[in-house]
């Protein structure tokens, strides 16, 4: 209370016009004043806010990666023999080609399947949108491992597909669906469709449908309006989604390892095998560098056509009125050449689709429902299997029982894994949110001219294939003695989840009305008070979203944990990974069901928080 009196006094003296030098200012919480004073200096503030992020990225990504590159040529020996082995050895080279081929197929299929859904999402009412988006978000945030496990059941010898085919009498023997390239592709497409939908949706949502309407009133048939107006405007979004999927796909580990056969090995599996079983470190380094170079080349190519940050956060770049470059002149030349074919196609498509298109996009809804079923059915299979009475993975289950739930309730190894995962996730999310939020503040508000490259750099953990991050950190942490420690594990998880926090917070900060901070400051709030009372509360939904994303990233993370774990308790994904390969039983379904339920609940909660927040702070934007 004494403090209050002092502060009042302080305020009054401030307001009193005559007293020039105010002796009380120095008395009020001297420490805080010192901090406020420091924060008032823009450079110091920038350094304080930026350093955790920079230390993390340089110390635990750039340096380990440089070690790998250095190691791949055996340091100063500059021995390129390992690279030669990759390209001369037929097996190694074929693995490369196979990786690229799978990546391409999966990318094209995911984009094609997802485009109509993303398009429909832009046309939906807000209620329909929140329902449909839950059906996409739940698969999106369910661990790759669980989704892959579901496909192992579905495609298995006694899975629903084989059982149905036999029941229909179409085949007499179960088809070997599992451990084929087909299985890999189906599994990966299933993994990437939700990603494709949301990436494309977020850029397509900004395209005003009035453009297409305007085209129609000007005489374009619906097909023409779509092909000539909407589609070209949506292409950057499609392209960026494609790049995202491609670079994740070529570094993918879980799905090809579990669903593919021996001939379906992809480069990431090779890297892991070389490092962990064959102990051929240099070759695995070289493979890593090749994979990294392919990724960088892809991104470089992409950067010629779209601003790169668009791939991860569509909210950043507005298409500016670009100058007409050589390239686009070339494109328009090509367009002119193709024009007759295009017209023919349009006329044909118009005749074919005329009848369907008039029915208020019913066919789009039908298609979307099919995709949603495709996305959620595997999860439902997993849930149903958890109530199976059979000791084996048979679908449909022969009967109902709770035996697997009882088993799970008594399985202490699962309990400790679960608790450890939660603990790890919370700690990682906490640090990621802290570091990411500070970093986002710096990245958005810095006046440095290299703002854009810095932002891209901060997203680099998303660009580098996870398998490379995992192996390089493994080597690096072993060298500095962090390997196998909780801190070492947390660092790996934070590194992976920090970019998500940055993307979310940067978008929120860009939309943040800075006059609110000015208003707080002029009405007497010190920098820390502004942060605590105004900035952070308004950014709260974004903070929760970022934190949740970070938590889920850590909760789902497998590769980094495998490499950095040491002798600690296995987190859930590692436990899962171990069991899936040695004893495929319904207990995994039960554990998965629990996780799916948790994910669903957290997504519903997040949606609810977002809705409530939007209702309250639709802000003055409505006016």
């Amino acid at each position: 209370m004494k403090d209050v009196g002092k502060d009042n006094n302080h305020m009054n003296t401030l307001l009193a016009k005559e007293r020039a030098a105010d002796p009380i200012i120095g008395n009020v919480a001297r420490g805080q004043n010192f901090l406020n004073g420091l924060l008032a200096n823009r450079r110091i503030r920038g350094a304080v806010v930026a350093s955790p992020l920079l230390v993390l990225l340089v110390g635990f990504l750039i340096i380990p990666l440089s070690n790998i590159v250095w190691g791949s040529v055996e340091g100063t020996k500059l021995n390129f023999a390992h690279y030669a082995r990759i390209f001369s050895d037929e097996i190694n080279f074929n693995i490369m080609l196979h990786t690229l081929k799978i990546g391409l197929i999966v990318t094209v299929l995911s984009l094609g399947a997802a485009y109509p859904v993303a398009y429909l999402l832009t046309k939906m009412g807000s209620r329909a949108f929140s329902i449909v988006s839950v059906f996409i978000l739940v698969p999106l945030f369910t661990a790759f491992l669980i989704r892959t496990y579901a496909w192992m059941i579905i495609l298995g010898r006694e899975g629903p597909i084989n059982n149905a085919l036999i029941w229909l009498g179409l085949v007499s023997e179960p088809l070997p669906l599992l451990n084929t390239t087909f299985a890999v592709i189906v599994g990966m497409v299933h993994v990437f469709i939700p990603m494709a939908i949301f990436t494309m949706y977020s850029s397509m949502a900004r395209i005003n449908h009035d453009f297409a309407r305007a085209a129609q009133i000007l005489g374009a048939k619906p097909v023409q309006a779509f092909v000539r107006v909407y589609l070209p405007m949506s292409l950057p979004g499609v392209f960026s989604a494609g790049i995202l999927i491609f670079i994740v796909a070529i570094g993918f580990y879980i799905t090809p390892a579990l669903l593919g056969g021996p001939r379906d090995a992809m480069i990431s599996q090779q890297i892991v095998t070389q490092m962990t079983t064959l102990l051929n470190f240099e070759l695995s380094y070289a493979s890593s560098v090749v994979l990294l170079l392919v990724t960088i080349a892809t991104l470089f190519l992409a950067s010629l056509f779209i601003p790169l940050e668009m791939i991860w956060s569509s909210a950043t770049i507005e298409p500016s009125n670009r100058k007409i470059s050589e390239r686009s002149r070339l494109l328009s030349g090509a367009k002119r050449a193709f024009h007759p074919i295009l017209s023919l196609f349009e006329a044909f498509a118009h005749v074919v689709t005329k009848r369907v298109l008039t029915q208020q996009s019913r066919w789009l809804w039908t298609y979307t429902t099919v995709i949603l079923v495709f996305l959620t059915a595997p999860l439902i299979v997993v849930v149903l299997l958890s109530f199976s009475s059979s000791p084996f993975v048979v679908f449909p289950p022969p009967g109902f029982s709770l035996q697997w739930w009882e088993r799970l309730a008594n399985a202490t190894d699962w309990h400790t894994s679960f608790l450890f995962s939660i603990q790890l996730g919370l700690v990682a999310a906490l640090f990621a949110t802290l570091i990411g939020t500070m970093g986002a503040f710096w990245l958005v508000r810095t006046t440095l001219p290299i703002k854009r490259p810095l932002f891209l750099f901060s997203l680099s953990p998303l660009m580098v294939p996870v398998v490379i991050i995992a192996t390089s950190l493994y080597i690096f942490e072993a060298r500095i003695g962090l390997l196998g420690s909780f801190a070492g594990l947390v660092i790996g998880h934070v590194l992976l989840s920090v970019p998500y926090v940055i993307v979310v917070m940067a978008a929120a900060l860009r939309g943040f009305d800075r006059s609110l901070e000015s208003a707080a400051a002029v009405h007497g709030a010190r920098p820390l008070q502004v942060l605590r009372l105004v900035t952070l509360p308004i950014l709260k939904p974004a903070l929760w979203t970022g934190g949740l994303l970070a938590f889920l990233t850590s909760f789902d993370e497998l590769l980094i944990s495998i490499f950095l774990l040491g002798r600690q308790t296995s987190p859930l994904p590692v436990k899962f990974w171990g069991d899936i390969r040695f004893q495929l039983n319904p207990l995994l379904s039960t554990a998965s069901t629990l996780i799916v339920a948790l994910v669903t609940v957290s997504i519903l909660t997040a949606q609810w928080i977002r809705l409530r927040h939007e209702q309250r702070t639709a802000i003055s934007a409505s006016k």
Partner: protein
Amino acid sequence: MSTSLEMKKIQKFYGALHVVRDFDLYIEPGEFLTFLGPSGSGKTTALKLIAGFETPSGGDMLLGSRSIVDVPPYERGIGMVFQNYALFPHMTVVENVAFPLTVRKAARSEVEEKVLRALQLVKMDQYRDRYPNQLSGGQQQRIALARAIVFNPSLLLMDEPLGALDRNLREHMKIEIMRIQKELNITVIFVTHDQDEALVMSDRIAVINEGRLVQVADSKSLYYSPQDRFVASFVGESNLLPCRVNQIENGTGTVTIAGRANGVARLSGQSGGESGWLFVRPEHVDISPRGATSTAQNVLDGVVEDALFLGEMTRYTVRCGNETMTVKQQNRGQPHFAGKTPVTVSWDADRCTVLH
């Protein structure tokens, strides 16, 4: 509690851009002063300098007798209404208004009392627990005003606060703001590009153009005796005709208007033989049929180009050689001149001034 504000040779550079030049201004305690200027003239920057969001590149600024150049915004004790109101979207009306007091850690009873008083002053006390987005634009404006005055600031800054309101509401809020200013006897600096707002509300108006204070004067002298062409054309409507000064007799001079007619006008420091611009307000110009005799010293012949009937008056555009003149005539039953009618326009010597 009102305080004076003095700006001494205040400068602000953005890189090589000189956005505020040589601001020398003394604002008296309790005065309502308006910064009036076109967009990009530097008026908002000047306001930011006063609020402390920007640091001046040179000069000094005194709030009362205390220099505030190095004082951060949160220690200046200034109230401010922002252009978009900047109400905190996550706080209720009460929390918003209480903000300046809570960050200063005022006692709860004091906060309650002052918030209630401020809300009563802006007639918003029944909206206490709403969130800003549940209020209309005019209501948000009132809350922003309440928040800015609740802690008895020494100075109140208003940055184009009426810009987002519709016309009727704007008229109403003008009166409200003036009432509240008088009631609190608070020093106000008001920024606008709208001359009507400036003329109605201000004790004095500081016209700003290209970063410079062009003229600081009360509404009437600004309107009737603008100091230069910019002020003349920016504040109210005006006719500016090229002219040359011939002879000078105690403050007035004989002039040649547009190279075709002789007249008499007040001078603003010109010497004989100098050319300038003859300034006359449209409502001070009479219009009569060609050939009618006039007692006015300045007479020009012309042809009506356009006649707009506006109800209480008619607005003529009259072509006189190369120049066009705007004439506003109260409608009191005089003859109406249709287009292409030859007319004579005339005005008295003491209604017009030669400007540089």
